[in-house]
Each structure stands twice: as C-alpha cells, then as structure tokens.
C-alpha cells in the first residue's frame, strides 16, 4: 500500500499538495471567525453536486423545463430534497457572501498585499449573483418568467446597445426555447467554470498571503458582544415582522420562528465565545480549523435542510406570456434593487438599474486605495455598513409596501392556488402531453373558468356572491375617486382585516363598526357595495339538483340568486312558483311528488352532453332507449295533465317557445348554447320583435360566440366549470 502511494506521489506529488493544503499556519490559532470562506466553498461544492444531479433530470425548453422540474420535485424519489438543497443553499450562499465581504472589509483584509484578491472576491460575488439570476428562470414557472422579464427589460433600457444585448441574452425577440438554453448554458456551464477559475486564484492568493490575523482580538471582545446583541435583536425583529400573520393581534403570533432562529444565533455566539480564548498559540489548518469549518458547514446544511422540509423549493404555474401575473417579484436578495427602481422615474430608470449599482461596485473596487490610511479604512467600514443598512431598508420598504397592497396579496394567493393546481393536473393519470403543461392549464375548467367568468360574465352575474375569483371584488369595488392615497389604503385594509373576501360577507358587515374608517369613508364604501348588486343570476351550482330544488321554493325564487336584478325577477316564472292559488306554493302532495319526479328528470337531462356518441351500437341503442323513457316521463309530467310547463316551454320538440327551451336543459351542450347565443335556447333579446310580451324584455345577454367575444374552447371551459366538471385528484 505504502509502495503504491509512494509510486503515485513520485509521479504527481500529491503529498506536497495535501501538506500545503492541510498544514497551513494559522497565526493566533483556529478561530470561528475564519469559517465564512470555508462555508462558501462548501456551499459552492454543494451546488455543483446537487446541480449536476438536477442536470441529469432537467430539460431546458419551453415545453419541457417546467415539466422536468415538476417531475424532479413531485415524482422522482428524493427530488424534493435535491431541489430544496439546491434552492436554499443558493440563498445561504448570498447571506454568507455578505458576511464574508463584511468581515474582509471590517478586518481590513482588502489592504496590500491583498488588493487583487479582494477584487477577485468581488468578481466571485458578481458570478454568484449571476448564477442566482439565471437559475431563477430555469423552472420556467410564472414567478421566474416574469421576474426575469424585468431583468432583461432593464438590459433593453440601456442606451444604444441595450436592444442588441437583450436579443443575444434571450436568444431572440421573445422568450422561448433559446432563452432557456442560453440561461441554462450560463447557469451550468459558463458561470460555474468562471467561478471555479476565480475561486482557485482566490484561494491560492489567500494562501500566499495568509489569514489576516487579528491578534488584539480580545480587546475588541466587548465591542463584539454589543454587535452580537444588536444583530440578535435585529434578527428577532425581522423574523417577527416577516412571519407575523396579517391581522394578528396576539403578541406571540408569528414570533416562534424568530425565537427559534434567534435562539440558534444566541447559542452559536455562546459557543463561539466559550470556545475562543482571547489569545492562543499558532496552529495548523488541520485539524483545529477544519473541525470548526466542518461544524459551521454542518450548521449551514442544517438550516438548508430545515428550510427544505419546512418550506420546500417553490414551483409556480407554468410560464404563460398571456396570463396576467401580478405577484412577480425577484428573489428576496434582489428586492432592494427592485425597490430602488421605484425611485427613478422616466428615463432616469437607467440610474437605478445600472448607474447606482455600478457606482457601488466601483466604490468597492477602490476600497484598497481608499483604505490606505486609518481614516480611509474607517470610511470604508462606514460605507459598507451604510450600504448594508440601505439595502436592508429598501428590502424592508419593498416587503412592507407589498404587504399593504390587497391586490398584491390576492395575486400571491392566486399564484399559490394556480401553482398547486398545475401540479395536480400534471400528476393526473393522463399525465403531461408533449405540448407541455401549459396545455393542461389552459384546458382546465378549474383554472380558466373563474378567469373567464370574471372577465366576461361578472359584470352582470355572480358566482356564489363573488366574481368567480374569490376576493377579487374587494379590489374591483368602484371606490369613490374622492378617496385618495392613504385614505383608500385605510379603506381597503379595513375591508381586508374585516376578513371579508366576498361581497355578500362585506354587505353583511356593519360598516359603522369599522373604526378605521371615517364616517365619510364608511358612506363611500357602503355606496360602493350598493353599486355592486348583481344584475343577473348567481350561477354557482347552476347545473345541480340543489339549485333546481331551491328554484322551485316560493321563498327563494325571487332572490338575487335566480334572476338577479333582471325583469325576470317579476316575471311569469316567479309568479308560477309563488302564486298561492295556482303556483308551486299551492301544490298538494301529489303535485309536489310530480315536481320531485320532474327534478329527477332534469337531473338526468342535465347529464347528457349532446347527441349520444357511444361507438358500440348496442350500448348506444340502450342509452337512446333510456333517454327516450326519461323524455317521455318529462313530457307526461310537464304536459296538460301534469304541471303544464309546456304551456310556455319547449321540451324536445313539444310545447310552446315563449319561455326557455328545456331540451337538454343545464347540460354542457345547453350551457354552451346559451353562452354562444342565448336565442338558440329561447332567451329573447330586446331587439326581438315580440320582446314586449316577455317579462325580461330588456334582458340583453350577449351572444358570445356569434359576436366573436369568446372562442369555442373558452365557452366549453365555462360550461364545464359551471357544471363542476374538472379533474380532482383522488
């Protein structure tokens, strides 16, 4: 064994290399404060390892990127763990980088002869930020897509060369396959290679000049304690503020993550203080410092694993250029840059996007020269502290401004719902088609129905009291424009905090009890709510048996649910139900039984989707026979000897057409027909000649398909959504 080792050492000289690596002199002994560099190397190696394994399962193209990431996250064993480690280690790396840079500057480790190595460190910082930016797009989900769009739009805003560079970066005029392949090549090829190269130089140069020893450290220990305590309080306050649930009143609500993290920090500092005597003998890197480094890396990994299990790596819905995504934000460590853009209006944008960050980097580059004198060093330290405080403040502003925006909170909630749904669809037994998961989402009634309803139907109809997309009405309230700025904020906040997400719930609230509102505001909100009364039926549960049962309830028929604010609310059908002499209200037991049987018939009818498509002739014949039995039964129940419905309604060719056509009533085909063109199922338009004969003469539901407002797919999606026909996982 020894001989083999010798043989290799003679040819490669590995022993010298290992000796050089492990037996580096550490003046003043091993210290906890020297661990940051090693934790960064550890993070990078973790990223390389997890990244390569992710690479083995990832496929960069606009039809496969989201899909392959979904597959890693939700189908492959251990995929969630692998992706979680990669995701959170990237974030840990940013924090550790900031700590590392801070320490270098405060300790004056950027001074001669270490200037060049300091600059290499700054290059490494840029590369890591580049890796974060490119990595965020790779899952090709809505979050990454829209956040990266902002970043590449900023490139475009650069004078002269902007559009050209943007085109090269995104690989064309618009986002697509080549955006992904280019970002992936940068993320997994170019940037890591550059990082390895500079890291080797960085570590080599660091070893050349050795650790910047702070031999008089014990003098600054009291100061370090003050710093630790300030940091701890700040961490606690940040956690408290971040994790506190909106509207929470209890003092400990949301405090626990802060207590856990803060407690961890206290423990860490205690350990550091306990294990660090003020002055010790020089020692070697191995094993004293290696142990400390290993413990620090273990702490980082534990935090990463904790976050992976507790939060998990996120995956929003697949990227869609046509779907509004109002929850677009960069990763948290870029939020200060995002916020900075808000302060530079118009063409000054370039100052916030390029000039200010560039100037800051320029200042950092100049630090070794500025720091030559004691005053210069003090200036550098002050500068970097102010920089950190500034970034912290901007991050705080970005998050707190978002927290106050109801529409943003709504968008974030909706993004979570959509992401969850996309994953459900991808996991359905039919799987993801080759056209990609976006096809699944766009053909999903559960996802598209509410949007189509809110955009096309909710100006007249309601769905369970809201506009299809729960909570949206708060945002869309026609608030009096006289209420401005802070007042409007107060109104919206008060509505949100009242827990009122639906118009009906809002209407039930006694607004005079919301003390956050002035009487004038209360009045304005009340007026806004009054205006939001629907003009047409509430369509939730339209195709269900419950809906029909309630329809024939004399107490319920005249409510908004069935005829909204239309003239039908005073029409013949309502009279037919409520009339105490001849209406449903007067029915004896035999008639009530007939009505129940009729509801059974219509429950059958509603389940038929157009003509029978059964390919097996025998089965088709049986189905046709069953249908005929049901139809005959319906005819009998609705005819002159029954409930006389056919005096007004048509039913499979029989009866009069003055009311709605009950053929296939409430089936998918029928709902499609009424949306496409209401006249096809007997709803009359006000332009019809005989409109004066009709109770709903002023009723004007548009013919959505005939007038080219909705395509057939959208109408079918609406019909399926109203009927509750969508995939639900078992």
């Amino acid at each position, binding site marked *: 064994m020894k001989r083999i080792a010798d043989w290799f050492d003679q040819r490669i000289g590995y022993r010298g290399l290992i000796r050089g690596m492990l037996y580096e002199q550490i003046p003043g002994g091993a210290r906890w404060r020297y661990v940051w560099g090693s934790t960064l190397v550890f993070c990078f190696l973790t990223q390389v390892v997890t990244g390569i394994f992710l690479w083995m399962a990832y496929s960069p193209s606009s039809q496969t990127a989201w899909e392959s990431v979904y597959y890693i996250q939700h189908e492959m064993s251990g995929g969630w763990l692998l992706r979680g480690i990669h995701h959170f280690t990237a974030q840990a790396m940013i924090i550790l980088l900031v700590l590392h840079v801070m320490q270098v500057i405060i300790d004056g480790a950027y001074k001669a002869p270490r200037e060049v190595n300091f600059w290499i460190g700054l290059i490494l910082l840029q590369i890591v930020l580049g890796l974060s930016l490119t990595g965020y797009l790779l899952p090709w989900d809505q979050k990454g897509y829209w956040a990266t*769009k902002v970043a590449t739009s900023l490139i475009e805003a650069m004078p002269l060369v*902007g559009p050209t560079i943007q085109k090269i970066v995104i690989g064309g005029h618009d986002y697509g396959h080549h955006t992904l392949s280019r970002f992936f090549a940068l993320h997994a090829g170019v940037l890591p290679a550059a990082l390895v190269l500079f890291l080797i130089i960085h570590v080599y140069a660091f070893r050349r000049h050795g650790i910047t020893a702070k031999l008089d450290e014990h003098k600054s220990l009291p100061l370090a304690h003050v710093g630790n305590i300030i940091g701890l309080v700040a961490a606690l306050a940040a956690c408290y503020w971040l994790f506190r649930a909106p509207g929470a009143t209890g003092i400990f609500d949301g405090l626990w993550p802060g207590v856990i993290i803060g407690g961890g920090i206290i423990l860490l500092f205690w350990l550091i203080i306990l294990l660090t005597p003020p002055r010790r003998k020089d020692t070697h890197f191995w094993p004293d410092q290696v142990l400390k480094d290993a413990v620090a890396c273990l702490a980082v990994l534990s935090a990463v694993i904790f976050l992976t299990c507790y939060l998990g790596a996120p995956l929003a819905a697949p990227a869609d250029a046509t779907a509004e995504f109002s929850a677009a934000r960069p990763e948290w460590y870029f939020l200060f840059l995002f916020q900075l853009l808000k302060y530079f*209006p118009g063409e000054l944008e370039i100052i916030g996007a390029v000039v200010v960050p560039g100037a800051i980097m320029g200042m950092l580059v100049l630090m070794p020269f500025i720091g030559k004198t004691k005053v210069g060093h003090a200036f550098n330290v002050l500068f970097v502290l102010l920089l950190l405080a500034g970034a912290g403040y901007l991050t705080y502003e970005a998050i707190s401004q978002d927290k106050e925006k109801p529409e943003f909170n709504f968008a974030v909630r909706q993004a979570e719902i959509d992401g969850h749904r996309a994953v459900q669809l991808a996991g359905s037994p039919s799987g993801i088609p080759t056209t990609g998961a976006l096809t699944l989402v766009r053909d999903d009634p559960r996802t598209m129905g509410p949007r189509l309803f809110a955009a096309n139907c909710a100006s007249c109809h309601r769905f369970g009291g809201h506009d299809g997309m729960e909570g949206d009405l708060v945002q869309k*309230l026609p608030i009096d424009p006289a209420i401005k700025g802070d007042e409007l904020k107060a109104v919206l906040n008060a509505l949100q905090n009242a827990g009122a997400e639906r118009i009906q719930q809002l209407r039930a609230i006694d607004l005079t009890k919301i003390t956050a509102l002035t009487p004038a505001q209360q009045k304005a909100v009340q007026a806004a709510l009054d205006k939001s009364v629907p003009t047409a039926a509430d369509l939730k549960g339209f195709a269900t048996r419950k809906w029909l049962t309630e329809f024939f309830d004399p107490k319920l028929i005249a409510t908004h649910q069935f005829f909204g604010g239309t003239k039908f609310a005073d029409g013949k059908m309502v009279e037919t139900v409520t009339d105490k002499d001849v209406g449903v209200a007067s029915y004896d037991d035999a008639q009530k039984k007939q009505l129940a049987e009729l509801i059974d018939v219509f429950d059958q009818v509603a389940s038929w989707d157009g003509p029978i498509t059964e390919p097996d002739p025998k089965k088709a014949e049986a189905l046709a026979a069953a249908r005929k039995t049901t139809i005959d039964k319906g005819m009998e129940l609705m005819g002159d000897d029954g409930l006389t419905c056919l005096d007004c309604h048509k039913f499979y060719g029989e009866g009069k057409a003055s009311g709605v056509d009950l053929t296939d009533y409430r089936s998918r085909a029928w709902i499609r027909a009424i949306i496409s063109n209401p006249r096809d199922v007997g709803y009359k338009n006000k332009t019809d000649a005989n409109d004066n004969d009709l109770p709903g003469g002023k009723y004007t539901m548009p013919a959505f398909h005939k*007038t080219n*407002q909705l395509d057939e797919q959208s109408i079918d999606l609406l019909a399926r959504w109203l009927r509750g026909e969508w995939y639900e996982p078992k």
Partner: protein
Amino acid sequence: MSETNEQSEAGDAAMTPPRRSFMTRFLAVVFGTVVGVVPAIAGMMTLLDPLRRKSSAGELVPVTSLEALPSDGLPRKFDIRADLTDAWNKTPNAKIGAIYLKRTGPKEVVAFSTICPHAGCFVSAGGDGSFKCPCHDSEFNADGSVRPMNTQGKATVSPRGMDTLETQVTEDGQILVKFERFRTGSTQKTPQG
C-alpha cells in the same frame, strides 16, 4: 521523473531567452491564434444568430368584434392569437400575448399593449378604467397616459404612457389589431426591431 522536472525548472530560471528567428515566433502566434479563433468564431456565429432574425410581429390579426366592447369605455382584456414561432417549433393560431381593448366611439376603438413600458411587467386594469403595473406601481389614466403621481403619492416611474397598438375596424364590426412590442425604459415608443 521528479528529478527531471526539478532540473528543467532550475534550467528555466537560469537560462537566458535564446534568440529565435522572427518567423518562428510569428508562426507560433499565428497558428495559436487560428486554432483558438476558428471554433470561437463558429460559436459566436450561433450566439449572435438572434440578431439576424426579424420579428414576426407586424400583421393585423382579428381579435374580436365591436359588440364585445362595453359602451361605457371600460377596457377588456383579449388574447392575441397568431402563428407562433419559437426556434424550431411553429404553432399556428397560438396565444402569443394579450391586449386591452376599449371603445372610444360608435366605431372607434383603442388597443393598449399589456406590457408595461417601464420594465415589461403585465399591467392590470382597475375597475374604474385606469391601469396599474403590479411591479413598480406605475399608474395610467383610462386613456393610457401615465399619471405623474401614483396613489402612494410617489412619482410614477414609467417613462411613457401605455403603448397603443394599431387597430382597424371592418365594415361588419370586426376588430383587427397589429400586435407589436416596444422598447422598454425609453420615453420614445420604438418598435422592437
């Protein structure tokens, strides 16, 4: 083996650079450059390929009909369908983007791009006909012009109003729109080339 290495290293340090002919040095540099540059040029050509691709935008595409637009002038969002080319994939009649359409007269309409002129986010329509960008809080009036101040009382960051798109209303009330993208971050509305 190790001895030879040590010898040559020591030799290098001790040796004075021998005179070599100009040709030798010249050819070494030329060959070295050629073998390095040729593969790099091939790579650069494909890297810069997007620059010679022309934008597919520029044709009027049917979007909807006049009847779809409410007479109160509130904007409605419509998907734009056209043939989509994404590198090697061509998808006919695909959703390629969205626009806001609003009625300004019996037969007149205005189309706005949903892309914020500031940094490219998807602008939302408010219930009162105005527009708001969810990213950096730019706000726009119902006519698409940019508001100098947003509701938070801060200066609006968008350099220009919402981008209008060319529209055409046919005799039978069909609305055609030319779907284009414009350069972000500039006061000038310049189509992306």
